[in-house]
């Protein structure tokens, strides 16, 4: 967090990397111990790779901005397909995050708070979608939930539900890929949280579920928030599992990443424009969340 407002630059330090807040420059408090003075005492073996890492992440984004077709951008952005894809992306990523919360938080609790045979194995399995290529995840979903899938054929036969090529399919594909982020994050927070608070609640007459709902959940809210943001961001950018499981149809299953990929085939300028929209929206949402919600925790 950048809570560095009003910290005067250390007199002995080189020019602060944030460009020097000239307003605070005149205030100097020599000889005061400042544990978090920027730029001071950062060893070069750490500083150089750190800056390289920063550049590595930022230069591609910068290139995207530099090579963006600014002149044709207004035209690109007024096309209804763009907004359709963007709307679908936001709706699906949010739905996938909610679904991940509903089934992922209890799963994280189970992994962190109970002991059952094979728990280590289950944990490893939960993280599997993290390493699985998303396209393979999409194929796996087809094999499981497709019209002809292991579970899907019964969904089709009993309820007439088919999931591939539907918006629900997009949400499921994104959930499959994004939920592990939430589970891992929440499980870590749960492990760090003191389980004795739950015991204290129990001795006050709370059932284990009430203890979870009224004590544990508020305690791990920061971890849940962080996990949700991770999962949401992952779902928003999801491509492989989505296109494999849910296909690509404008307005129904064509999310932004799919639109970007297909535009890239014959119109790179359009692809860049779409990417910029996605980038801007996700930055706006994440910044907004941090201001309103993450800071209070």
């Amino acid at each position, binding site marked *: 967090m950048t809570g560095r407002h009003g910290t005067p630059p250390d007199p002995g330090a080189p020019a602060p990397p944030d460009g020097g807040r000239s307003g605070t420059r005149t205030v100097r408090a020599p000889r005061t111990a400042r544990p978090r003075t920027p730029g001071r005492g950062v060893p070069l073996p750490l500083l150089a790779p750190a800056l390289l890492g920063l550049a590595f992440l930022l230069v591609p984004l910068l290139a995207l901005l530099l090579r963006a077709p600014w002149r044709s951008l207004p035209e690109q952005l007024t096309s209804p397909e763009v907004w359709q894809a963007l709307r679908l992306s936001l709706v699906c990523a949010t739905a996938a995050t909610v679904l991940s919360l509903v089934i992922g938080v209890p799963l994280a609790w189970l992994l962190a708070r109970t002991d059952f045979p094979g728990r280590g194995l289950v944990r490893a399995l939960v993280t599997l979608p993290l390493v699985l290529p998303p396209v393979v995840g999409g194929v796996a979903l087809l094999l499981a939930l497709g019209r002809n899938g292991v579970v899907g054929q019964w969904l089709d036969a009993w309820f007439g539900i088919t999931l591939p090529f539907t918006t629900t399919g997009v949400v499921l594909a994104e959930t499959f890929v994004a939920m592990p982020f939430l589970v891992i994050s929440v499980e870590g927070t749960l492990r760090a949280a003191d389980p004795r*608070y739950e015991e204290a*609640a129990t*001795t*006050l007459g*709370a059932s284990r579920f009430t203890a979870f709902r009224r*004590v544990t959940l508020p*305690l791990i*809210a920061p971890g849940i928030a962080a996990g949700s943001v991770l999962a949401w961001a992952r779902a928003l950018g999801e491509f492989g599992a989505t296109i494999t499981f849910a296909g690509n149809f404008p307005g129904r299953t064509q999310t932004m990443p799919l639109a970007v990929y297909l535009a890239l085939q014959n119109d790179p300028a359009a692809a860049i424009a779409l990417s910029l929209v996605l980038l801007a929206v996700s930055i706006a949402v994440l910044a907004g969340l941090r201001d309103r919600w993450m800071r209070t925790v």
Partner: protein
Amino acid sequence: MPKNPGKRPGPTGTAPGPAAEGLDARLVVDRGTFRLDIALTAAPGDVVALLGPNGAGKTTALRALAGLTPLTAGHLRLDGAELHRTPPESRPIGVVFQDYLLFPHLTALDNVAFGPRCRGTGKAEARAQAAEWLDRMGLAEHAGAKPRRLSGGQAQRVALARALATHPRLLLLDEPLAALDARTRLEVRARLRRHLAAFEAVAVLVTHDPLDAMVLADRLVVVEQGRIVQEGTPSDIARHPRTEYIAQLVGLNLYRGQADGHTVRLDAGPTVSTTEDLSGPAFVAFPPGAVTLYRDRPTGSSARNLWRCEIAGLEPHGDQVRAELTGELPLAADLTTVAAAELDLHPGAPVWATVKAAQTHAYPA
């Protein structure tokens, strides 16, 4: 007082009726190499302290009473009701945890209202009750504060109010004063003593501090290595320690031996003259302050208890110096700083130690 001394085996000893008021428990918990096996009984209004060194099983006993650790064997009856298989949330038991475990996201008021809410009281009513409890604890103005803004003593009182707000028939306190600094401890101890004295049901507290135990409890149960080694009133235990641990806690030199008239032959070798007239296995105890040290063998001394020792260590003890001695009889002796200087005491120095028979105390083992 419905005393149930000794261990009552048999898981379903049925003796309800009027005598069943209060706590009647035998707690057996197996944990790998450690085994806790203690029997506890107490009448309503009793305050029992479980006293023992770290790792003795006190906290395990407390958790077993609360239902947080399952019993391997034994029974737990409270006011005649068998609670052995009752889940913790349904036991009429309140717990004040060692570091209080106030819910950090709730205000003091909502912390106290938590119990009544969980037991079915409406929100407004629960909060009204909680406000009343906080008022009784002198914390009315802190009702809206989050736990991190409370001092240690205040947090302890909120924890006590939270535990009492469910009207428990058994109140458990785990090291209730351990988290406090020495200054607040004195005041909080006195306050806690008043609240415990006013509590009409059974209270069991766990502590490793003998002073806390003696000030707060009517009865002490000393636990070592999972077993009860001694129980009784604080004064009884202070006067008649039966283990080295208790003797150290209450500050006495303690020896075991065979009594024959006014003489006790100690298992360690030497004999001690006492004023009591006993026979058979006995304990002899005397305070470190009763010991007098000499550099040369005293000739005119009337003391018949005279041992040749050597200084093993010296350390300040209050405004005095405590000398740890080895030799014929290992013992602790207190002497003034001036005396220590005049005797030129240092580790390794040979000394003669004497104790008057009138200052020893012998009792059957």
